[in-house]
């Protein structure tokens, strides 16, 4: 059984260094909850439409250090996009705190929040929906500058030109409309827009998932170069494990609104502790064809976040589920290797 094997390699794993945690903590998320509640009590009973409670993000805590990329991985419905947006208060968190560089973002009033937005930005997944089709590229990027009062009049043009160059686009593309560009180019425009305000932190929400493979590589490289040159910090959300593994310093694995495991990239990919992480990694088809033999077969579909299983949410699909798993939700435990896991069956240190 896999778990027995894991215990054996424990001693080796413990010796691997903690990956980069240089720099202080830039972002600290504590017990963030985002529920969508359309249940309407009596009215609902009358109309026969009781509504439902979607527990999109169910008490997530994580930290991101300055200058690092935290990869957030999970499958559909796990809440990773909602988490990213809740951190930026694009969705209002139901409860919990988000401490950015010492300030609790969730408590800021409208004006303070607007100013804070300069420091935290987002790049979206869909290159076709993330740019206003009626605006020129210049207008799209200039809007950022104008909204925040960062540049005026003729300065704006110059700044837009510079931003376009930084993302590898010709400045005279400024006067064109989004429909005239390819998916990869539109993503670059989206990145230019995110950079317009000189942010420190960017949530990259599946930035390459909608692109062709060869273009993905271009955009990934661009994001990495920008991070290096501008000293950025990323929360990189994706369902593509290879991409996450490549760009991230640390990885957090999400399942149905919970983070089940976090740790340094090499640790998570090399020695995953949580059964879900193990299954996820084993399901990735490998170019060297090595994946097939070790597949952990998960049964059934992803449960819906509307009616998540009780106890440990993964127990319905977990090959090792015990009785305890159905009753009690596991707590996170810090391991010596630098990972943190929420699973009843991980008893090692």
């Amino acid at each position, binding site marked *: 059984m896999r778990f027995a094997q894991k215990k054996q390699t424990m001693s080796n794993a413990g010796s691997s260094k903690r990956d980069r945690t240089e720099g202080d903590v830039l972002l600290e998320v504590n017990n963030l909850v985002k529920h969508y509640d359309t249940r309407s009590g009596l009215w609902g009973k009358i109309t026969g439409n009781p509504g439902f409670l979607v527990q999109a993000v169910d008490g997530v805590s994580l930290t991101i250090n300055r200058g690092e990329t935290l990869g957030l991985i999970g499958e559909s419905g796990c809440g990773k996009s909602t988490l990213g947006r809740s951190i*930026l208060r694009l969705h209002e968190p139901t409860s919990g705190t988000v401490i950015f560089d010492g300030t609790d973002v969730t408590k800021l009033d409208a004006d303070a*929040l607007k100013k804070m937005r300069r420091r935290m930005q987002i790049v979206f997944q869909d290159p076709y929906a993330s*740019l*206003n089709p009626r605006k020129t590229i210049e207008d799209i990027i200039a809007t950022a500058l104008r*909204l*925040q009062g960062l540049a005026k009049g003729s300065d704006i043009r110059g700044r837009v030109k510079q931003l376009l160059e930084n993302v590898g686009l*010709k400045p005279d593309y400024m006067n064109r*409309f989004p429909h005239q560009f390819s998916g990869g180019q539109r993503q670059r425009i989206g990145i230019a827009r995110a950079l317009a305000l000189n942010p420190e932190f960017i949530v990259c929400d599946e930035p390459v998932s909608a692109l062709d493979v060869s273009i993905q590589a271009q955009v990934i490289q661009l994001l990495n170069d920008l991070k290096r040159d501008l000293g950025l910090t990323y929360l990189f959300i994706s369902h593509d494990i290879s991409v996450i593994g490549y760009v991230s310093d640390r990885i957090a694995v999400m399942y149905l609104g919970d983070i089940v495991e976090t740790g340094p990239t090499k640790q998570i990919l090399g020695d995953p502790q949580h059964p879900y992480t193990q299954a996820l990694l084993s399901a990735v088809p490998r170019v060297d064809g090595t994946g097939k033999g070790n597949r952990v077969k998960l049964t059934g579909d992803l449960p819906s976040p509307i009616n998540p299983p009780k106890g440990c949410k993964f127990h319905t699909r977990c090959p090792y589920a015990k009785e305890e798993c159905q009753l009690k939700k596991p707590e996170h435990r810090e391991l010596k290797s630098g990972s943190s896991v929420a699973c009843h069956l991980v008893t090692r240190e």
Partner: protein
Amino acid sequence: MSESATYVAIEKVSPLRRNLKIFMTSKLSTVAASFVIVFVGMALFAPWIAPHDPNETDLFLRLQPPAWIEGGDISYLLGCDGLGRDILSRIIYGARISIFIGVAVIVVATSIGIIAGLAAGYLRGWVDITISRLVDILVSFPYLIFAIALIGMIGAGLQNIILVLVYKEWVVPCRVVRGETLAAREIEYVEAARALGGSSRHIMLREILPNILSPVIVVSTIRMAHVIILEASLSFLGLGVQPPTASWGSMVADGRAFMLGAWWVSTFPGLAILFLVLAINVTSQGLRDAFDPKFHD
């Protein structure tokens, strides 16, 4: 790393010009639109085009037939009405009423409707609840009867007609805008604007509105035809613009007594209504097709 130059920009035009080009590919729509422009021209240049003073009566010319019928006169091309007034001139001046009211009502109603619809669709909450309930209440009244009742209360006349018609008409664009806004607010570019610190006002007016104008324009054009018919109906009933001002509706009413004999008195203003409304309807179809994303890349 720079972009390869092999990407060819297929079209360098703005979305607006693209729509115009597509519109013009339909011959029917272009013809219809030209018709509408002719009517508008008629209305604008009435004092210069109309052969006679529309209100000048001449009892000797009473019920004179159109020029091609025996007894007619070419200088009174379409004949004269019961008071000896030149029908052609009255039709030309009548175009002013119909088009002015049509445009005025639509412009005002659409403006109100857009603001209400945006607010309801984007801000949701009690704003949406209030506006939606108001819309529902207004919609439940039948249009013409409601208009008649209101006119009965505040009296007839040009201003009052416009008021009454706007009162009911704004709910149409409001519903359209609200629906479009509900959809648009979920699209990423709106989220992006919020992430950049955009206020609700900015998002509603600068991000969402430009993208939902197409269906609003189409609906408003169709409704304009509707409003014109309504105005004609009200004038027909004597509740519209008052005599001696010529309105096509009241002209049709005037000719009722002479339908069997001097048929031209009712027929020509009736035809004017018909053609204008038809032209507007076909144009709006063309607009709808021109804005349809299917015809784009």
